[in-house]
């Protein structure tokens, strides 16, 4: 799996949290490689380690053991300050609760990463407006969060994540706080951005959301128990017929024959692989 062209390369990453007397194994010997332009969903129940994995990928956390490289740079060798610079340049974060500043207008939210990138004021305003246009909110640039709907707020957050042209967009339950309709709009936006070349990692517990990705990593007990790839299926603006087809696939989820979950054998196979590499 290790290739020099990989955007992200994780080898035997383990994360142990100390909680009082007990050690919690949040990430157990995970190896993962993500190439430029992938569209990945990480799925798992709460406590499965998907948040820990995301924090490590997002350079907010470092593995206790193992190696994590982003664009060939070993995160373990970098200072806090260098990690901050990498987060600023390489990674765009989208959160479940949007995490917008309460009193700033949309374009000021969007330009925030550029403040830390030492981009000039006029340049950052221009780029923030561009990013807002990219998410379809050009005419809302001067609105504050309280004047925007939930879906619009999340799109502002996505504009903020995009503004410094990151290599990787990390979304943590991006539709978790939205209703189905606006959640669908946000997913459509993600897919449009992916088609434009953005590398996308979405962390979710919602199988329906995960199903739309090209590659699904399923986590349990701190390990990746399956890593499946599927052909591109969804496009942004589906014609009514394929929309129905998509719905059909959703309905079919309950039918064992159509379940996209890896077969028990496949899981065993992956587990074997992990065991062997360990």
């Amino acid at each position: 799996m290790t290739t020099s062209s990989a955007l992200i390369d994780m080898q035997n990453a383990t994360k142990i949290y100390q909680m009082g007397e007990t050690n919690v194994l949040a990430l157990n010997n995970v190896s993962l490689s993500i190439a430029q332009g992938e569209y990945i969903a990480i799925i798992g129940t709460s406590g499965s380690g998907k948040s820990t994995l995301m924090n490590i990928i997002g350079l907010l956390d470092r593995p206790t053991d193992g190696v994590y490289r982003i664009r060939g740079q070993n995160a373990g060798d970098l200072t806090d300050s260098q990690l901050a610079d990498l987060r600023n340049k390489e990674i765009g974060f989208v959160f479940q609760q949007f995490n917008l500043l309460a009193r700033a207008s949309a374009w000021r939210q969007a330009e925030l990463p550029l403040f830390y990138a030492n981009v000039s004021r006029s340049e950052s305003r221009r780029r923030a407006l561009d990013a807002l246009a990219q998410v379809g909110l050009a005419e809302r640039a001067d609105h504050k969060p309280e004047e925007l709907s939930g879906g619009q707020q999340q799109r502002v957050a996505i504009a903020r994540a995009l503004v410094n042209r990151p290599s990787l967009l990390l979304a943590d339950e991006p539709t978790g706080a939205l209703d189905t309709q606006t959640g669908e709009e946000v997913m459509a936006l993600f897919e449009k951005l992916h088609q434009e070349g953005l590398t996308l990692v979405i962390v979710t517990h919602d199988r329906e959301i995960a199903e739309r990705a090209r590659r699904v990593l399923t986590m349990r007990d701190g390990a990746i128990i399956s890593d499946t790839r599927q052909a591109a299926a969804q496009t942004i603006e589906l014609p009514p017929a394929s929309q129905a087809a998509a719905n059909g696939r959703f309905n079919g989820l309950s039918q064992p024959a159509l379940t996209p979950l890896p077969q028990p054998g496949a899981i065993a196979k992956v587990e074997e692989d992990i065991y062997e590499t360990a």
Partner: protein
Amino acid sequence: MKLLRYFRVAVDSIASHKMRSGLTMLGIVIGVAAVLTILGIGRGASANILSEVSSQGTTRLTVSPGSVSSDGVAGAGGSVQTLTMGDVAILSNPDLHSDVTQVVPQYGGNTQLVAGSNNTQIRMTGTTAAYADVHNLKLAEGRFLTEDEISQRSSVIVIGTTVATDLFGRPQVVGESVRINGEPFTVVGVLKKSGNAEFGSNDNSGFIPIGVAQGRIFDAPRYRGEYTVTSISADAASEERVDAAERQIEQTLRLRHGLAADDDNDFTISTQASLLETINTITSTLTLLLGSIAAISLLVGGIGIMNIMLVSVTERTKEIGLRKALGAHNSDVLLQFLIESLVLTLLGGLIGIGISYGVALLVQSIPNFNFSLLIENDALAMALGVSAGCGLLFGLYPAIRATQLDPIEALRYE
């Protein structure tokens, strides 16, 4: 400049909590205003007294009876009546005292002055004609006592304006008659209003020939057969010769009083210069004392700032987590909060300066209040410096707390 952009962030944050920021600033506002006002009052009063003292002549020396020892037990000034008219006569000899130009004896006490049905209690000084010159007395009407009146012990009196208006209801009273102990005195002069109610004013004084005061009015005690005096004023030839004059007077008096080499002086010589020094010391000590009490309110204000900044950091935990996730370095977070508390205290300091200027204007508009509040540039610089220092000092701990937040925990914070 990135640093300037933090000021924008700080102003935004302060503006979004106007009430809280205002209350927090209040501590600094009050502290700065109190320190500046007290400093201003101290400096104003001191400048006022100093100008008053130096307007009375800086060449004057005053000899008082009794000893004031600087290194041992101090006898109360005036407790031993050892200065006499004989001393005055010797000191008046210019051959022995080349640097002393005029010597003026005084015998003073409080007494009642009566005119018609009015009476008033005044400070009465028996003296000689040169007193007016040595003490820079100015007359509004008439003249001061003459040499002839002194030697003939005439029943004449020079009074201050307050005395004149108390007794006659008007200041033009030359030629009128007043009574002391039933004895009539003719008013020959009225002093100019000193315009200064506090220090060295003669508005409530009267002056009569010294012989009259020692004899008929106060029945002064005698010492070795000569009338005693309550003090002697002398004028030095010039400001530079004041010290020389002091030595000459001291030598003569020690000889005349038969003091041995290791005896302390049984008199005290004070000069205007030493008086100025004393006043300076007293006012600056007082100012320092009051100023430090006021500075405590600044400290309290600073602690208020720290408290609010800690609250602000906790409240914005999630924002800090977000900023870190978006690429803020620890130094960025530190500067953001440090500059926020700096802006708070600087703003408070500026408002405090404004208030103390307001108080200064108010003080100037009070009638009969003779000194103004002096706010000088160094005090302004100090006020700004201290408020900025307060912001940095008390903002530092909360800002460090902010940088230490773990971004993962901070983002999860609700």
